[in-house]
Each structure stands twice: as structure tokens, then as C-alpha cells.
């Protein structure tokens, strides 16, 4: 697909933003159910995070160097969080852990949007002949 601005970095960040907002929804789900008896805290894991970098080619100077796999659709796996403690009603939501996770997601999301902004600013600079 050709986009007006087809940039590998921006594409990666777009995916990243999608994944981070998924993480935020999982935290929202866990915290909404902080008082629901029997609710098990959820976590989400993405296949891409295991070293898959699509569109960003690494240079290979040795035959033994591994090529990064190309990126497929994001595959999200949701699993039950390892319970640090289980309440008497069977609920495993740990508010501290959820808050930390939320802070991390927020920070990474903001960082990613910042990089997209800078990247676009660079492009604007280029297309306006250094006047943008």
C-alpha cells in the first residue's frame, strides 16, 4: 500500500501506538474489576516484541548474521498475570502493579507520539526546502 507518507519508522511507531493503547485497555479492565470477586488480572503479550523488526533492515556484513523477520499483523496474546497475592475472594488484581504498568504505557505512548512528531517535522523541513 502506498501512503502519502510511507516511512518505516512512522509505520513501526503506528503499530507501537496501537499496542500501547491495547495495554491501556487491559489495565483499565483490571482496575475496573479491582473489587470483582474471582476476577483474574490479565496481561497482554505481543509476538512482535520478540525481536521482530519489520521494514527496518539491519546491514549484514557477515554470513552468520541473522536477518530480522518482516513484520506481520500484530498478534496479541492475553494471559493471566502471575498473582503476587490472591485475595480471599479470588481476585488477583494488584493496584500498585497496574498503576506502574499504566505509568509505563503512558510514558512510552507519549514518547512514541513525540518521535512521530519530530519525524514529520523533519519531512516538513525537507519538503519546504528548509523553510518549514
Amino acid at each position, binding site marked *: 500500500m502506498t501512503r502519502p507518507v510511507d516511512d518505516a519508522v512512522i509505520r513501526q511507531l503506528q503499530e507501537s*501506538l*496501537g499496542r*500501547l*493503547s*491495547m495495554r*491501556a*485497555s*487491559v*489495565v*483499565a*479492565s483490571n*482496575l*475496573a*474489576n*479491582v*473489587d*470483582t*470477586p*474471582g*476476577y483474574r488480572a*490479565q496481561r*497482554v503479550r505481543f509476538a512482535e516484541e520478540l525481536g521482530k523488526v519489520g521494514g527496518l533492515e539491519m546491514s549484514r556484513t557477515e554470513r552468520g548474521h541473522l536477518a530480522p523477520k518482516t513484520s506481520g499483523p500484530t*498478534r*496479541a496474546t*492475553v494471559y493471566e498475570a502471575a498473582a503476587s497475592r490472591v485475595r480471599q475472594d479470588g481476585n488477583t488484581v494488584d*493496584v500498585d502493579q*497496574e*498503576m506502574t504498568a*499504566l*505509568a509505563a*504505557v*503512558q510514558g512510552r*505512548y*507519549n514518547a512514541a*507520539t*513525540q518521535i*512521530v*512528531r519530530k519525524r*514529520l517535522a523533519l519531512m516538513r523541513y525537507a519538503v519546504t526546502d528548509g523553510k518549514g
Partner: protein
Amino acid sequence: MSLQRAFAISATGLTAQRTRMETVASNLANARTTRTPEGGPYRRQAPVFAAEPLSVSFDDTLGRVLRSVQVQRIAQDDSEPLLRYEPGHPDADAAGFVAYPNIDPVKEMVDMLSATRSYEANVTVVRSVKDMGQHALQIIA
């Protein structure tokens, strides 16, 4: 947009905790109520929370495991009323005992604090997600 979903889930959490707060208010207000439409003293109320799946499209992996929280019903605490000897009371029985609701103010206070904290946790999520959305909007600014 996936951020909307986080808002929707947290909103159910806010509603649930607010309902809990309302039952605490009702319990404390009626701690000494001896007459009810159903007859007898007031009975302690407690909400029952249930994790409910969201309504999502079929191929949405994440959407199928996310849970909103709903107040399934308001349960009634049917523990025995407290009997106090007050012969002069209009609702006293033949032996002079009045049946008062079995409400422990300390328990209600603890419940209230717990509801407040859980409410705050949900507000924090809403704030963080809102902040994320604002940053996303700044991309084009």
C-alpha cells in the same frame, strides 16, 4: 480507536464504585431505621460486582478478554437484627425488645474508604488515557 475502549471500561468501574458508595450511604443513613415498606427493620445492602465481556466484533482477540464491571444486583444482608431492650419504643415487641438493623458503622466506613480508593484508581486510568489521546492529537500540531 482502542483508547475509547479503555474509557468505556473505566466508566463502568466508576459507576460500580459509585453504586457501592450509594449503598454505604443508604446503610449509614438507615442504621437505626425500624420501619420499612417490607416490614421489620432496614436490612444492610451490598452490591454484587460481576465482570462482563464487552460487546465486540468476532475477530477481536483482545476485546474478547477485556471485562467491564457491572453491578449484577444489590444483595440484602439477612443477618439477624440487633435486639435492644427499649420498652418505651413504639416498635418494641411484647417483651420490650426493638429490632434494629444489623449495621456496623466501622465496617461501612472501611467499605466507603475502599470504594473511594477504587474510584480514584479508575479516575487515574481515565486521566492517563486522556493524556495519551492529547499527545496523539499533538502529532499534527
